[in-house]
């Protein structure tokens, strides 16, 4: 029976039933797998305010599996090691839905090794509040013209009377020239892909609180009619993430990216969502 940080890992699992908090498990319906290296595997099923724990070799069918060595696991249980830090340092690996794994923190009361005095911990009272103040964002005539164009399945760029630079979405001024942009050019709608950001992690939309499904691809597309740095930022069809090639200009070296075309939404309202995403056009 080994111990790290004064914690016997077997005991942590053996006491799960007695430390279970039905109120923390409310709404949780999942199977968690624990793979403690060279120690053992446990499968924890939680549902309907109840739990079941099995010692098993087979962690298939788990919604999330955490693989960690005994020492790191004990350290996290003891509160001496930070779970996120362990994850970042690759001392712990999580397969499956990471956010689900975080739920386990609420399901059990804190493990206290036998014989240790239960220190009355000061309860950390947490008040979660989503602060929401509705806004009415104006487009102004420039962005407005552009969004109106999207409604009509047209992608417009504004042009600088000085340097001829195209900007899409458009801006009122050409920043380097410091003069007002004054004419419009239709670009695309198709073009070649430049950058692809293959996103495994999505941030919640600060306005709606929704998180995008991952993986998704944010892309830069050089639409037909544009040159150099005049790249359009949007999204790629998530089904095609692995089928596209990035384009790049690096001095003299030019690599052409996959040709793409926009997929228009049926219901267009004059917003970025009027283009659902770009898809391969080859």
């Amino acid at each position, binding site marked *: 029976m080994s111990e790290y940080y004064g914690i016997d890992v077997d005991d942590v699992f053996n006491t799960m039933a007695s430390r279970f908090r039905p109120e923390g498990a409310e709404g949780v319906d999942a199977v968690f797998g624990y793979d403690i290296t060279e120690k053992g595997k446990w499968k924890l099923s939680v549902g309907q305010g109840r739990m079941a724990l099995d010692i098993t070799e087979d962690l298939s069918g788990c919604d999330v599996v955490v693989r960690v060595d005994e020492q790191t696991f004990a350290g996290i249980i003891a509160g001496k090691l930070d779970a996120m830090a362990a994850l970042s340092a690759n001392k712990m690996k*999580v397969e499956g839905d990471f956010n689900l794994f975080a739920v386990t923190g609420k399901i059990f009361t804190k493990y206290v090794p036998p014989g240790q005095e239960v220190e009355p911990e000061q309860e950390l009272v947490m008040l979660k509040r989503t602060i929401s103040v509705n806004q009415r964002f104006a487009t102004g005539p420039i962005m407005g013209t552009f969004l109106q164009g999207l409604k009509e399945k047209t992608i417009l760029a504004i042009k600088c009377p000085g340097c001829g630079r195209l900007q899409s979405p458009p801006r009122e001024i050409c920043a380097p020239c410091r003069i007002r942009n004054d004419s419009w050019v239709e670009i695309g709608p198709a073009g070649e892909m430049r950058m692809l950001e293959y996103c495994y992690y999505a941030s919640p939309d600060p306005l709606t609180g929704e998180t995008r499904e991952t993986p998704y691809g944010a892309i830069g597309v050089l639409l037909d009619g544009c040159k150099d740095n005049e790249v359009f930022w949007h999204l790629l069809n998530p089904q095609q993430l692995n089928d596209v090639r990035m384009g790049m200009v690096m001095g003299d070296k030019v690599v052409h990216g996959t040709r793409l075309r926009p997929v228009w939404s049926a219901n267009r309202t004059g917003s970025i969502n009027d283009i659902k995403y770009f898809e391969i056009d080859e």
Partner: protein
Amino acid sequence: MGYKKRNRHVGIVGIGETKFSSHREDVNQPEMIHEAVRGALDDAGLTMDDIDCVVHGNMELFEMVHQPDMWHTLGTGAYGKSAFRVTTGGTTGGTLVCGADNLVASGMYDVVLAVGFEKLQEGHTTGGITNMADPLWARRLQSGALTAQAAVKLIAEFGEARARRAAMTYRIIMDMHACKNPNAHRAFHLDWDQMEDLMATSPPLIGDLRLIHMCSQSDGACAIIFASEKKAREISGKPVWVRDHITVHREETLNLHNNYYPIETTHSFAAKQLYGRNGIDNPLEYFDVFEMYDPSAWWGVDWLRDFFLLEGDEHIKMVENRDIMIDGKMPINPSGGVIATNPIGATAIIRVAEAAKQIRGDAGDHQIPGNVEHGLASSFGGTMWTVLTMLEKETNW
């Protein structure tokens, strides 16, 4: 008429930092700020009576407190004092230093306390950053400060294997530095033999940008006290002089998705302007330490070229040869940098504080060996903005 001689010199006479962590539930915002302010006052041997003006900064939408300098008066000690609040996103800390420097140099104030802070755990960091994007467009596309752009660029130029190794080498070095800094938020005790494993298994965030490469989300505060030359010499036995600073912003559109090179970055523009007007031809030779605002290991490697005006793969070699280590030829981030610690509103002022500590010779375990005279500190934020500050041991320019 180019850059003019300043009205009077300004010296850093006091530095205070909180321990940086993701668990400062034991203090509220003003209390946390107070720790740093108290630290700076004690370091300088001053009391609030000696302070003329307080400059405050953070990114308020992270904690969702409107005009937080009002509430934070409880911790900054600004009551009855002159007070400013300047904010510029990630570069806020750098702007605080520029601001304090301008205020003291102007003659309008003799002793100015600048304090930057952030309590990221009280909000949602990536959501807060995404909130900087245009609500009509980029907000649907941006994922906080995460991008694989630098990785794509370095890999295209130097090949997958070399680029990935360089980024990981940089990361491990930053962690080694952080392990010597008791205030750093994250110090993992990474080892060289973990390199392959980390490169293969650290969870990817975007493309080749992996969790291990990316900066922290920290809570913390940092305060610096600036004084006019006359007062600085009275207050401190080793004032650190602010020689010059430059701020370079650019338009709102990010050009992270363009894969079009070369482009002028605000980093290289700032560097060229700052060194040019100070007569510095060879920054790599001139500076003894550089605290760079490096939000990711990929950017850290990439920006060495911009900041030192290098060519080809000189910057990659700096990393491969480990010149950037504390005992190396050009120490970068002896504090562990931003990857180890990132309380955003404070991060950029911490760069200046850490560079100043190096010049004073009291950085403790993460002190660079030898005489440190010329320090450089950078800030990053917004849509690829830069603030660059030069610090000196002597007023010999």
